[in-house]
């Protein structure tokens, strides 16, 4: 058995999420406090003293539980700092859920934060473990690593590079369109397709508009046992599935790996669907927040999650299937592309959109009667990554 799952055993009863963006005026401490305060403001009567334990996710904005306990001045609570690349926020959430499901605690909080814009560099920068200087990850940037998907995908499925470019452009266009409707998004304006397609090249065929925003931000979730959920809110969000996979990281050394898929995502999605009892994801999932770090990533993810047939996602993207008014809206909140990507907060931000959608609080992005939401969070790069998939629902059972 891959995992037993904790279907419907825990629920989210409160959430907070800052606006994502270049917060020159706010520190990681400020962002954490803002997100946590927003969460408590939605759950009257609950204070941070009522929360039994905390999980704090950040990739590079500090180490240890003190990153959270110090700014919040938490009084002697268990605080665990977790890190799992760009899936860090989801990992904080997953472990917090398990702590509640185990019965160890009644009420816990998962918080994610990242302060990326203090580095002064373009793109993501992380400190390297001392090494021998031969690892390609230490040289190749993230957009370059993900751009490897584009020529490989075109070659394998005999897709005209112009069609693939159009599909990549559509992904960026769609996510900017959605983000323009989101007051918390980093980039709040639509971008014309010809501008996206002609943006300055970053790596391979990826232009600036094919890359997610580099942002500061924080998000959090308050979690309790499902049976207690109505003590805190009349609209809890139930956790149906939590799947997490770390791959053997052998794509870059295995000639059998073809750079058109993330096997880690395939495994995580299969586990999540099994836990949640989902058999036809394309029909059953109401909305999905996926890890669109770069536009080709979102295209490949559609196939890895089972939303598109192999080699067909680019076509489905162009057909508008994943638009806000499409058959299966993908990244209705704007995604990493437009909402921004403060690493440790992103996984929780994805859950936040499901939270708003189920509560009918998504404003202009509101979908009609969503039942099941999926969040997908990726850490690493093609061939060497970790993948997280959750399924959440508005109702139990």
């Amino acid at each position, binding site marked *: 058995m891959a995992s037993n799952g904790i279907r419907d055993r825990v629920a989210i009863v409160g959430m907070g999420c800052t606006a994502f963006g270049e917060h020159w005026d706010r520190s990681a401490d400020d962002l954490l406090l803002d997100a946590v305060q927003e969460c408590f403001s939605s759950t009257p009567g609950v204070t941070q003293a009522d929360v039994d334990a905390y999980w704090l996710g950040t990739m590079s904005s500090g180490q240890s539980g003190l990153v959270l306990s110090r700014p919040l001045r938490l009084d002697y609570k268990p605080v665990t700092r977790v890190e799992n690349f760009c899936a860090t926020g989801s990992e904080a959430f997953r472990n917090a859920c398990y702590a509640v499901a185990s019965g160890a605690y009644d009420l816990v909080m998962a918080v994610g934060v990242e302060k990326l814009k203090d580095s002064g560099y373009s793109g993501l920068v992380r400190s390297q473990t001392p090494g021998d200087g031969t690892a390609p990850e230490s040289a190749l*940037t993230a957009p370059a690593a993900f751009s490897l998907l584009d020529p490989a995908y075109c070659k394998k499925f005999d897709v005209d590079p112009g069609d693939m470019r159009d599909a990549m452009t559509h992904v960026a266009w769609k996510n900017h369109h959605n983000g323009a409707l989101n007051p918390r998004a980093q980039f709040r304006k639509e971008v014309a397709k010809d501008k996206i397609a002609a943006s300055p090249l970053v790596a391979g065929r990826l232009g600036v508009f094919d890359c997610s925003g580099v942002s500061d931000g924080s998000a959090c979730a308050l979690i309790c046992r499902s049976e207690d959920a109505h003590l805190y809110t009349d609209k809890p969000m139930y956790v149906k599935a939590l799947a997490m996979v770390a791959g053997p990281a052998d794509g870059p*050394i295995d*000639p059998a790996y073809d750079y058109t898929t993330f096997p880690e995502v395939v495994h995580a999605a299969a586990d999540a669907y099994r836990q949640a009892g989902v058999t036809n994801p394309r029909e059953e999932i109401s909305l999905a927040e996926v890890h669109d770090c770069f536009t080709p990533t979102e295209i490949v993810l559609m196939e890895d999650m089972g939303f598109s047939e192999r080699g067909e996602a680019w076509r489905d993207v162009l057909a508008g299937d994943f638009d806000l008014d499409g058959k299966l809206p993908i990244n209705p909140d704007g995604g990493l592309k437009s909402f921004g990507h403060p690493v440790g907060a992103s996984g929780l931000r994805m859950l936040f959109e499901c939270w708003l959608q189920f509560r009918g609080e998504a404003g202009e992005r509101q979908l009609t009667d969503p039942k099941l939401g999926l969040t997908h969070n990726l850490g690493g790069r093609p061939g060497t990554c970790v993948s997280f998939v959750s399924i959440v629902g508005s109702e139990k059972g």
Partner: protein
Amino acid sequence: MSGLLAYGAYVPRHRLQRAELGSALGVPAGKGARTVAAYDEDSTTMAVEAARRALAGARPPVGGVYFATTAPAYVDKTNATAIHAALDLGHEGFAVDFAGSVRGAVGALRAAAAGSGLAALSDVRSGRPGSADERDSGDGAAAFLFGDGGVIAEVVADTSATAEFLDRWRAPGDTASSTWEERFGLEMYLPLIKDAVTRALSAAGIEQADRVVISSPHARTAAATAKSYPARLATEPAPLGFSGAADLGIGLANALDQAGPGETILLISAADGCDATVLRTTDRLVSPSQQAGDTVAAQLALSRDIRYSTFLAWRGVIEKETGRRPEPDRPAGPPSARSEAWKFGFVGSRCTECGRVHLPPTRVCSNCHSVDKMERMRISEAPGTVATYTVDRLAFSPSPPMIDVVVDFDGGGRYTLEMTDASPDEVEIGTRVETTFRRLYTSGGVHNYFWKVRPVNG
């Protein structure tokens, strides 16, 4: 019989046309081109490339590795050790530098000949912008393997003459050399040459050599000597510019490329004295480089022109904007030592249970999950094919943009490597590539040596 067993030369791909240099500086600079070591090449990497060609199909050297250059990548630390490691020669044996002077080349050759070793002669040459040194020098390398049995040429005479005089000099740390008046050097050199060459020809029992190779940092001395000691047979010159400690070796390699069996070759090196050597080729002379099409002339024919501004940037004369990215960390000592065979020798591991090749070597097989069932597998000489690729315009690179390719090697194994000696429009899925030993970058004074690939016959 002991003597020369094999040789190889390496000519870097890049050229600076003298017309380009002249137009950039607004001076007449003549015709032709000089060879230019790329931003990721130095005397060590080019020595490795020449030595790989010399050792292709040959036995590894019985004796040591003797490395000569006027442009050592490190001082205090031996550079020949990196060459030794890149050739996967294990930990036994000797490796030493003859670093600093042009004449070190003769020292390396004679030490290798005496000790059945490998002489690697390599240099990066430059001078002040607009100088004759900058214009008329070239970069390159040559390597010579000596030993017993199956020699392609025997050494029949070795002579020397030595004098102390101030013709050309450079203080450590200076980027350009100084020279005295040209006629002074000429008049100092000619009697020394006459002395050494006369004794060498006499010892060899010949009046005139079939081929003559002359090398001197003093150009007018070299020209005058060529007139005094004409060869019996014509040798097509290899006009890559005076290449310092590599010059004599590249000249010899070029002569061997064109020589037949039973010929005599007179080597004259006029650098702070004169060293003369007479070689006689044997009927074993079908050089590996001729077989592989890696002759000096063939390598000279594969050229990529660069702008003068690029040349200055590569030599560190001007510092270009490198983008808003952090410089890479320096390679750490202990991990580099642990992975010596991988990092320098490009040695991976192969699972003895299922055959899966792992780059870098690992203890657990990614296919059958056997633990510690690995044998070493050297990948450095395997060609490969590009599985997918990208051009990284964001990454830190000494000469952006960085081209990265996922390479599947013939015989198994995959790794992501930088592609060099290529422009972004020269790569696609299926491009055939060959390995080349390079310096990825220098950080904290540490050169990060590793392997790259370049297009085959690019």
